[in-house]
């Protein structure tokens, strides 16, 4: 996204290129232009731009993409940690 870059080398996105069938869905759904299609194969062109929304993983028909997608806001993550440590009742998240 123009003008905005987040932390580098933290993203969990993985693409198994040998499983890819080159359908181009990941290119279509990614709002940060992380993927490029070349010679009937997708490849990760800009990993650090990924926000781990999980759209590519969800829409990949051959399950070639792996990413730890989920709640990404500070409040949501703090609540997750508190729930894991049984310090807070499960249920409530950030944008309810």
């Amino acid at each position, binding site marked *: 996204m123009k003008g905005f870059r987040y*932390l580098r080398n*933290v993203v969990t996105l993985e693409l198994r290129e040998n499983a890819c069938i080159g359908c181009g869905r990941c290119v279509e*759904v990614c*709002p940060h232009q992380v993927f490029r299609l070349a010679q009937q194969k997708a490849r990760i062109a800009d990993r650090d731009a990924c926000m781990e*929304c999980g759209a590519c993983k*969800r829409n990949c028909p051959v399950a070639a993409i792996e990413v730890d*997608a989920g709640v*990404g806001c500070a409040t949501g993550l703090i609540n997750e940690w508190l729930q894991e440590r049984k310090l807070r009742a499960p249920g409530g998240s950030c944008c309810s």
Partner: protein
Amino acid sequence: MATKLHFADRLGAWKARWGIGRMTYLVPAGLYAIGTPTPDDPVVVTANYKMSYDLVRQALAGRNVWLLVLETFGINVWCAAGKGTFGTDELARRIEATGLAQVVSHRRLLLPILGAPGVAAHEVQRRTGFGVSYATIRANDLPAFLDNSMVATPAMRELTFTFRERLVLVPVEMVGALQPTVVVGAVLFLLAALTAGVSAGFWVLAAYFGAVLAGVVVAPLLLPWLPGPSFAIKGALVGLVWSACCYLFANGAGWHVTTTVALFLALPAVSAFYTLNFTGCTTFSSRSGVKKELRLAIPAMGGAIAVSALLVAAGWFL
């Protein structure tokens, strides 16, 4: 249905932006007609948050389009897709419930790109026979998309986060921060007023509220111009500037050195916390990145607050 927004729609949107009745601001799910669509006209899918629905119907004014509204319980497309309510199951269910296959002759649905985290296009195809095309990110681009033979240009696929787009998010963040801020502010005021007099209480209160506003309002608005990728550091920098303002306005030269250091530690920590929270409003911060920031920032912020409190306490005895 109408494509022009009236005063009540605009008032409703304004209220939702300020968090008033935001969780009940919705329209019934189902199939709506914009203009007088025929069985050949396109089907656009959206969420039943009234602001989402209003944006889409307004953008499509003067056209003939079917609008399939999913039950997302009044949550916008992006957040509902993350939770899965704007998802494969609900889409398949809504296609079935509305009898869409009998209404239109084609088998193509146009979905917002930000709905993709919840919807598996290949599964929708398999279960309903409808093919999914992810159209644009913004509803505003839908007319241009339709006129471009339903092909999205790179600009229609690229996220933006303009000053205005950040500004509209600020009110609801302020409302969210209000309750803890009032509680903490009251405690700080009492502590300062009891130990150093009522006027000191008001100064402390003003300094604290300023630090919250620096983190909730100023840092998000200045986001792209503040240095570095870290939200916590961006917030801390604005908090630091605010600390300097306090020092100048409140005649900091006359303070004890412990008070000065405490102020320059605590206020940036408060701002940093609130700016870090703004990651929930952005569409470029990754879950792994926020995790990493939290692991570093929470001990740093907690440490700064603790040292600051110790310094203030020490100042009483020096």
